[in-house]
C-alpha cells in the first residue's frame, strides 16, 4: 500500500518545488499539497494520512496550531514541521506537538529519509490503538528526585551546565527529550548527537533553563500507578545497562559514536516500559499479574495485554522523535538482536549483552525468565569468546 503524505505550506512555489522534487517517489507515496491549515484539516477528515509535513508560519492558522489539532483529532498521523523560521520562541512552541522539526532549506535526501523512516516506524506497532496513543505522548516522566534536583540546580544563582548535564544524563525521560531536541533541526547541528552530556552542552544553560523552568518539557513521574513495579530497580537497571554497554563498546575499541550511542541506548532501552506504566497503568497491572503467575516472559505478557512489547513502544515513540537510528535499533531489538541483521558490534549488540549480563548477575531478571542472551547469535558474530571478558567489566 502506498504511504500517504500531506504537505502544508502557504508558499505556492514551495509546494510546487516539493511536488516536482518528490515526483520520482510517486509510486511509493501518494502526496497531496495544500496551502493552509484549514485545507489540511479537511484532507485529514476525508481520508487517512501517514505523515503531515507543515510549514510553521502561515496566515490565520500557524503550523504549531495545526499540529496540535492533528495530534488530538488524528493521532496516528506522524507530525513533522518544515520551517524557515529561525525564531527560537516559535521553535520552543513546536517542541510538544511536532514529532520532528526540519529547517528550510532542507536537503531533499534528508526530507525523503525522514519521511520514509517515520512511515517505516509504523510497522513496529501493529495495534492501531496503541500506535495512536503512543504518538500523542509529548513527555516521558522523570524520576521525581532527579527532577527536583535539576530544578534546584537551575534555580540556584550559580547553576552550572556541567552539573545540570550530569543530572539529566541520569534520567531516562530527560535524556530522551534532550536527544530529541538536539537532533532536530532546531539547533542547526549537522552531525547526530547521541551523548546526553554533549547534547546538554549543545543546548546551553539558557535554553535548558527555559525548557525546564518555563516550558516545563520534563514531567515528574506519578508513582501511584506503579504498584508492584520496582521503580528504584528499573532506574538502577537502566543506568547500569547504559554504563555497561558503553564499557563493552569501548573494550571492543568501537568508534566513539558507537560508544556514545551504546550508552544512550542502554539508558533508554526499557523506556517503553516507563511509557506503558505511566500512560496505561491499569493495563500494565494486568501485565504484571500475568508475569507473576510465572507462565510467560515479560515480553509475552506485554504482547498479551497490549498487542505490543515495551521494546516496540519505546522504539516507536523515540523513532518518531527523530532519535538517531542506532539508538532506536538498540531499543527495538535489545531482546532479539538476530532480527536486526547487524554483523558487527553496534550499539544494539552492546546493549543486548550489557542487559543480559546484568540480569544474569542480578539473578532476579527484571524481564522474566527469558534466556538473557542470544548465544547462538553471538556465536554467529564470533563474539561468544569475549563474554568472560565483559563479565569481568561488571
Amino acid at each position, binding site marked *: 500500500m502506498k504511504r500517504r503524505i500531506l504537505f502544508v505550506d502557504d*508558499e505556492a*512555489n*514551495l509546494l*510546487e*518545488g*516539493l511536488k*516536482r*522534487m518528490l*515526483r*520520482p517517489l510517486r509510486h511509493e507515496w501518494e502526496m497531496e499539497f495544500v496551502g493552509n491549515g484549514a485545507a489540511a484539516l479537511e484532507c485529514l477528515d476525508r481520508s487517512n494520512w501517514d505523515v503531515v509535513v507543515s510549514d510553521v*508560519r*502561515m*496566515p*490565520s492558522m500557524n503550523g504549531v496550531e495545526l499540529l496540535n489539532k492533528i495530534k488530538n483529532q488524528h493521532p496516528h498521523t506522524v507530525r513533522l514541521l518544515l*520551517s*524557515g*523560521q*529561525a*525564531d527560537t520562541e516559535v521553535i520552543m512552541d513546536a517542541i510538544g506537538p511536532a514529532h520532528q522539526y526540519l*529547517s*528550510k*532549506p*532542507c536537503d*531533499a535526501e534528508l526530507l525523503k529519509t525522514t519521511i520514509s523512516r517515520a512511515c517505516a516506524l509504523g510497522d513496529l506497532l501493529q495495534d492501531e490503538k496503541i500506535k495512536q496513543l503512543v504518538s500523542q505522548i509529548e513527555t516521558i516522566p522523570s524520576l521525581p528526585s532527579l527532577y527536583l534536583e535539576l530544578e534546584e540546580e537551575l534555580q540556584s544563582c550559580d547553576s552550572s551546565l556541567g552539573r545540570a548535564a550530569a543530572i539529566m544524563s541520569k534520567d531516562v525521560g530527560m535524556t530522551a527529550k534532550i536527544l530529541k531536541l538536539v537532533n532536530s533541526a532546531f539547533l542547526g547541528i549537522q552531525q547526530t548527537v547521541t551523548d546526553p552530556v554533549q547534547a546538554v552542552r549543545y543546548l546551553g544553560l539558557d535554553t535548558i533553563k527555559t525548557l525546564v523552568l518555563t516550558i516545563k518539557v520534563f514531567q515528574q513521574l506519578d508513582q501511584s500507578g506503579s504498584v508492584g513495579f520496582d521503580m528504584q530497580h528499573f532506574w538502577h537497571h537502566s543506568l547500569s545497562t547504559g554504563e555497561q554497554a558503553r564499557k563493552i563498546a569501548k573494550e571492543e575499541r568501537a568508534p566513539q559514536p558507537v560508544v556514545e550511542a551504546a550508552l544512550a541506548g542502554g539508558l533508554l532501552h526499557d523506556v517503553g516500559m516507563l511509557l506503558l506504566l505511566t500512560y496505561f497503568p491499569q493495563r500494565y497491572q494486568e501485565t504484571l499479574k500475568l508475569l507473576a503467575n510465572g507462565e510467560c516472559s515479560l515480553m509475552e505478557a506485554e504482547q498479551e495485554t497490549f498487542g505490543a512489547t515495551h521494546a516496540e513502544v519505546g522504539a516507536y515513540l523515540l523513532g518518531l522523535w527523530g532519535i538517531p537510528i542506532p539508538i532506536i535499533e538498540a531499543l527495538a531489538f535489545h531482546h532479539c538482536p538476530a532480527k536486526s541483521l547487524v554483523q558487527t558490534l553496534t550499539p544494539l549488540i552492546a546493549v543486548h549483552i550489557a542487559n543480559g549480563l546484568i540480569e544474569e548477575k542480578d539473578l532476579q531478571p527484571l524481564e522474566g525468565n527469558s534466556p538473557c542472551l542470544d548465544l547462538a547469535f553471538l556465536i554467529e558474530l564470533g563474539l561468544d569468546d569475549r563474554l568472560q571478558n565483559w563479565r569481568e567489566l561488571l
Partner: protein
Amino acid sequence: MNSHLDIKILLIEDNPNDAELAKVKLAEVGGSFSYELFHVELLSEALVFLQESSVDVILLDLSLPDAQGDESVHALQKNFSQIPIVILSGSKESSLILRIVQEGVQDYIGKNRVDGELLAHAIRYSIERKKSERALLNSKAETERLLASISYVLIGVSEHDEVIQWNLTAEKFFGRTASEMLGTSFCQCGIQWDWQKVVQGILQCSEEGTPVHLHELWYLNGNGKKGFFDITLTRMHGHVEESRGFLILANDISERKQLEIELSLAKKMESIGQLAAGIAHEINTPTQFVSDNLRFLQDSFCAIQTVLTTYDQLFQTVEAGQTNSPFVDAIKRTLAEADLEFMKEEIPKALKQSLDGANRVSNIVRAMKDFSHPGTEEKKPIDLNRAIESTAIVARNEWKYVADMVTDLDPALPLVPCQAGEFNQVILNLLINGAHTINDVISQTEGDKGKITISTRVEGEWVEVRIADTGTGISEAVRDKIFDPFFTTKEVGKGTGQGLAIAHDIIVNKHGGTLTFETELGKGTTFVIRLPLQRTHVC
C-alpha cells in the same frame, strides 16, 4: 548713629613744621568728629606702628628719608591694604600723583593748600570710599567664586571682540588660563570648535537680542580630544561700552552624546536583530524551492538523456536501412518510464519559479544593504520610493501574514535631503505598528488579511508619505499621547512605547518635517510624513 566719632590718624611726615601744621589745622575743625593724631617720621616707623595699633586713615608725605615717590604707598598697600591713604605732599609731579591715585590711594592734598575743613573732608570721604571699595572688592570676589564654581564653560566677550570673562571650567576645558586669555581677541583666541556655528549664533544673537541656543556643537579640548557642547549665547546690555558684548555659556554634553550614539546604535542593532529571523525566513523559503526545482531538473535531464540516447540508436538503425528496428520497442518502454508529459508541463514552470526565487533572494539582499545603510549622520538627497520599498521588503515577514501591501509611489518624486537610516527606521516603525494593529483586528474577527497602503507624492515644497492601515484605529482618549515616549497600548512585553516617539523625533526634530495622523475607529489609521524638499536649518 554715634554722634561723636573718634577718628585715629597716622601722619607720616619727616618735616616737623608740616606735621605741626596738620595737627593745628585738624584741631581747628569742629563738628561731630574728634581726631586723634599719631605722628611718625619714617616709613619704617610707620610699618612698626601699624603692626601694633590700628588707625582709620594714613596721611602720607611722598618724600620721606627712607622712601621716595610711590615706594611708601606700595609698602603700605602691600601690608595694610584695608587702611585708606591720603597723600599730603608738596610734589607737583602730576603724572606721579595720577598714577598713585590710579593705584588705589584715596585722595591727594597739596601741602600749600592745607586747610582744616578740607583735610577733615578728605579724611572722612577717603574712609567712606575705602569702605565701598572693599565692599566692591568683596562682591567681585564673590562673583568670581561663583563663576569659578560653575561647571559650565563661561566666556564673556566684549563688543570689540575682547575676552572679558574666562572661568575655571573654561581653563579646564581649553587648557588656557584666564590671565592668558583675558584681553585677547576672542575670534583669534585659538580655541578649536565649530566656529561657523558660533559666529552664526553670535550674529543672530546680536541681531535679535534674544538668547540663542546652539546644540551639539563640536569642540576639541586642550588635549585635542573631541567633545560636544550645548551652548547658550546671551547679549550683555551694559551701561558703559566696556561691559557690552555677549556671554557664552557652554554645557559639555559629550557623555550624553556618547550614550545617545550608543543607544541609537543599539536600537539599530536591535531592529536589525528583530528583523534577522524574518529575513532568514524570507531567504530560506526561496532557497528551498529553488533547490527542489534544480533537483527536479537534474532528474528530468537524466530521463530526457535516456530518451535521446534511445532515439539516437533508433535513428542510426533506420539510417542504416533497417526498417524493423529493435529500438522501436525500446523507445516505447523508455517513453513510458520517462514521464515526459509531466516534464513538458513542469520544466518551464520550474525554470520560471527558480528564476523568481533567485530574484527574490537578491532583492532581499539588496534591500538589506539599503536598509542597514552604514550610518552617515549626514543628510543626503535620497530616493524615498526606493527606501520605502527596501524597508518593506526587509520587514516583509513582519506584515505578510496579516496584510497585503499596496504601494502607490509617485515615480516623479524628486530626491529628498534625508538621513537614510533614520528615515528607514521611521518607515519600519510605522509598518510594524500597522501590522500589529491589523493583527489585532483579524485575530478578533478571524477575518482575512488587512491592507497596508503606502503612497508618496509632492505637495508644493513638501514631499508627503502616507502609510495607511486597516487596523483598529486610535481611540480618542489616547490620540494626543501616541507620540509621547514610553506610551504604548500594546500588552506588557510587546511594545516599548518608543516606536512612534522615535519616529516623531526623527521626522520633526531631525528633518524639520511633520508627522501627523488621520484615524477612524474600526477603519484604520493613516500616518502622514511630510518632509521639506529644501534643506532647512534645523538646530
